[in-house]
């Protein structure tokens, strides 16, 4: 009855055309042919890159550790299939620049043979710390796209006394339906993963939030969660970016995460449904994260589908399987169309962050014919972070980045709502992405300037010390010489 009050909690946002129907009705394809070669980047997560433990020429089994995590925030990488290590070198990264990244190349042997897994009889007897250790060792990262190491988040949850765990099943990006299908087909496994996470974080309540454009997923999850009083499944309005953590937390709990704080500081933690599924696999079956469900869709895709692929599969092979028309493809996007990154070519591997690969035709792209700003303030009303995109963009245009930062540039989440709604086709979010990078670059330059000053001072001090030492040595030498001559003269007078 009070639901209209809850809608007030949603700030900004747009309702983009969904384009999900093409893939949401089809079951997840598990018949993807194993690629001959897998290109596995050593950094598929936020934090430090993993360090390889294998040698070129070594035989590995599926699920075997290839690279271990370094430092506090990092995640290990495992072999997505069995085979021989061909190379450890720099290969193009799945990134808009396609610059090189350290990558392990694995030649598969076709047997897809698992490493013998150690399975725990009852994981609920394990200590909570043990759950996060196992999750960390399985290389699990946030599969919603942020790729933050899940074990670190579980630990933070335990330390901060979380009272609500929110499971993000919003999947608000258009085209993507991998989470939708996962919830429809593997609801029981996801709910089991949620229970394991609750145990690992020592938390009592979980809320699974699913957008109301996925009724079947909602029903499946309701049925699976029914026996457990600690897990509540709710429907949330369909509105992009509902899956943004702060928006979802505000809607579900009514609490606002303060600027510059983590959600765990107000007692809430958020995980994706795909992550919960990966936790189930890691703890119940001892299987590390080596594959994921990816949505392949877009106007140029003749067989759009959700398909489970091992990490390291080249996008070109995925496109062959889904019959992508190369001539019609105007843009390749990794992720969703709103926040995803456009890729320059298809010779790039799929990684833990790859929720979808889209091959869009020219007609699906936004018109980029930029017109002057008419100050309609549409961008202000859709901004979920409550910023004034038009003013920020005007400042960035004349490189007044400090003014843009004062207007809240650092709170921009690059959701793209402003660019989407702008009737003048102004590339607003592109300005903010540029400016955010530039602000970081300037901070680094500032840091370097301070370092330089320190180095110069240290050098000047040293030079001064050396000169002082030389002066003293010189004086001592002169004194010694005078002393010698005096002794010599004394001896001569004695003789």
């Amino acid at each position, binding site marked *: 009855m009070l639901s209209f009050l809850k809608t007030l909690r949603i700030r900004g946002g747009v309702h983009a055309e969904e384009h999900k129907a093409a893939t949401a009705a089809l079951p997840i394809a598990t018949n993807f042919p194993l690629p001959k070669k897998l290109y596995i980047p050593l950094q598929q997560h936020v934090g430090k890159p993993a360090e390889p433990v294998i040698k070129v020429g070594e035989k590995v089994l599926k699920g075997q550790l290839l690279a271990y995590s370094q430092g506090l925030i990092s995640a290990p990488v495992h072999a997505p299939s069995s085979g021989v290590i061909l190379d450890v070198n720099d290969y193009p*990264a799945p*990134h*808009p*620049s396609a*610059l*090189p*990244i350290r990558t392990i190349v694995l030649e598969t042997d076709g047997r897809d043979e698992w490493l013998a897994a150690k399975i725990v009889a009852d994981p609920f007897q394990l200590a909570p710390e043990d759950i996060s250790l196992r999750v960390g060792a399985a290389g699990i990262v946030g599969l919603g796209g942020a790729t933050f190491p899940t074990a670190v988040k579980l630990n933070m949850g335990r330390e901060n006394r979380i009272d609500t765990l929110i499971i993000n099943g919003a999947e608000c990006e258009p085209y993507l339906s991998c989470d939708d299908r996962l919830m429809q087909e593997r609801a029981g496994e996801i709910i089991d993963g949620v229970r394991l996470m609750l145990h690992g974080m020592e938390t009592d309540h979980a809320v699974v939030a699913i957008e109301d454009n996925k009724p079947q997923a909602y029903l499946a999850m309701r049925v699976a969660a029914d026996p457990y009083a600690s897990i509540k499944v709710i429907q949330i309005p369909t509105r992009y970016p509902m899956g943004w953590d702060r928006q979802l937390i505000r809607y579900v709990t009514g609490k606002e995460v303060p600027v510059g704080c983590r959600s765990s500081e107000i007692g809430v933690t958020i995980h994706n449904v795909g992550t919960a599924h990966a936790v189930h696999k890691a703890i119940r079956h001892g299987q590390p994260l080596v594959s994921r469900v990816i949505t392949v869709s877009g106007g140029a895709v003749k067989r759009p589908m959700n398909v489970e692929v091992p990490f390291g599969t080249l996008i070109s092979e995925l496109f062959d399987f889904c019959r992508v028309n190369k001539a019609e493809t105007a843009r390749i996007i990794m992720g969703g169309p709103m926040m995803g990154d456009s890729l320059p070519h298809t010779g790039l591997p799929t990684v833990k962050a790859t929720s979808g690969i889209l091959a869009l035709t020219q007609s699906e792209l936004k018109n980029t*014919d*930029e*017109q*002057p*700003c008419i100050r309609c303030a549409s961008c202000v009303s859709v901004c979920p972070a409550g910023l004034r995109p038009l003013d920020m963009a*005007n400042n*960035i*245009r*004349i*490189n*007044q*980045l*400090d003014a843009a930062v004062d207007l809240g540039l650092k709170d921009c989440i690059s959701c793209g709502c402003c660019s989407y709604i702008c009737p003048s086709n102004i*590339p607003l979010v*592109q*300005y903010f*992405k*540029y400016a955010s*990078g*530039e602000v*970081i*670059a*300037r901070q680094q*330059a*500032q840091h*370097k*300037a301070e*370092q*330089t*000053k320190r*180095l*110069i001072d*240290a*050098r000047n001090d040293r030079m001064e010390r050396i000169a002082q030492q030389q002066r003293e040595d010189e004086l001592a030498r002169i004194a010694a010489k005078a002393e010698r001559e005096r002794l010599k003269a004394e001896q001569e007078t004695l003789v």
Partner: protein
Amino acid sequence: MYVLSAIVSLTLLGLFLGLLLGIAGKYLKVESSPVVDELEALLPGSQCGQCGFPGCRPAAEALAEGNAPATICPPGGSALAEQIAALLGLDLDLSDVKEPELLVARVSEDTCTGCTRCFKVCPTDAIVGAPKQIHAVVADACIACKKCVDVCPTECLQMHPVEVTLRNWRWAKPVLPEASNAVC
């Protein structure tokens, strides 16, 4: 009567204080304006001479007198220019300023003779080496002052653009279409 004594006493007081200020101004004179010191503190202090002045202090003096633009310091880039403009209260439009290409010195192992001349002139100790050993540049500490390039007898030290990697790659600024330049 009261008015007269007030005028007289205040006038005397004024004259006395004025005299005091005059004496203080003469004997306690600060050699340079504090703005110059503040500007000098902002500048890198490597005395590299890329601005055309013999060092950072002369450049700071020129800035304070208004004889140099805020964008004078190439190693400082636009970040420093913004700081200088804020300090001097200048209007700064950086939209036409091109960021200088970042450079870093690199030693070519084939021609380095280990003469140690370069690391003696390096203001930030960014070059490591020993006599008759191949030298190397610590890229993070190099400020691209090119002093080493000038002294290298075999031309084995050359400036190269800083390589773009995933760590320092940034989104480019959206290009303005011609039409909307005037509006907004």
